């Protein structure tokens, strides 16, 4: 493997979703992602997923709400993946869909624990942060900036952290 391939493999393995599509989207064709985002954002609010209190209930085991939401998400996800695989469904632009397997690294434990700590404080995982901002909690923009800084710090110290 060339150096570039190795780096790319390492990069996509435990870090970030890499867009493998060979189609270069025009600016306007990105609008479809915006629309999916809007639907996602509405769902976040209407299902009360962005409620800090719902996250508290989840961790205090006083309500089934969030377990139901995540559980339903997993079931729908399983069905969707099975359908996509069985019928070899292609993307909207006609490219095949491949879902890469995840490989284990210790970051999933250390990073996972750290995210869990933050999740119980902010009452939001990364996606809902944006919906909270849109829903009128402007100060969450600071949370978003801080989270982005956290990502940057991770990127900077990545080689020194156990994986």
């Amino acid at each position, binding site marked *: 493997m060339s150096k570039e391939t190795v780096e790319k493999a390492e990069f996509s393995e435990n870090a970030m979703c890499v867009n493998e599509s060979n189609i270069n989207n025009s600016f306007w064709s*990105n609008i479809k992602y915006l629309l999916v985002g809007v639907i996602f954002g509405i769902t976040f609010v*209407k299902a009360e997923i962005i409620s800090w209190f719902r996250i508290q209930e989840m961790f205090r085991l006083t309500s089934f709400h969030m377990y139901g939401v*995540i559980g339903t*998400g997993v079931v729908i996800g399983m069905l969707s993946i099975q359908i996509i695989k069985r019928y070899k469904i292609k993307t909207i632009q006609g490219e095949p869909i491949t879902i890469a397997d995840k490989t284990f690294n210790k970051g999933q434990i*250390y990073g996972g*624990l750290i*995210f869990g700590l933050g999740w119980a*404080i902010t009452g939001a995982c990364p996606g809902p942060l944006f919906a909270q901002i849109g829903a*009128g909690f402007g100060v969450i923009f600071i949370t978003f900036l801080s989270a982005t800084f956290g*990502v940057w710090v991770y990127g900077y110290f990545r080689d020194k952290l156990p994986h």
Partner: protein
Amino acid sequence: MCFPAKVPFFNYDWKKEIWNIFFIVGVAIGGFVAVQFLGNDEPVKIAAETQQELRKQGVTSFGELLPADIFSWESLMTLRGFIFIVIGGFLVGFGTRWAGGCTSGHAIMGLSNLQLPSLIATISFMLGGFFMTWVILPFLLGL
């Protein structure tokens, strides 16, 4: 200004990933639309036990999606607000990157695709959350 440019982790073709930006802007718009036009004006019905517990631990504002006594510009200048808004965000960003995913990537997508690493990550998310909620949060809420 592009200070992360020298970090190898950030050397990717951002133009190709620009759909991410469209997506998150959409999520924010969705949040706005839902609250402005699709709201039902009823407060989120929180379990009574949790409400009581939180009240005892120092939360005063109920009825909105987030407790406004913690998540507001005024409270950002207090120690409690700073921890919840700034430190909390840092832990979310740093943690999800190190874990290689969040509740969407690991818990929902990963578990759907029967990935063991995602199960490990999801269990870690929950353990971290339980520890914060039961051990540290009562202290933080009282600050």
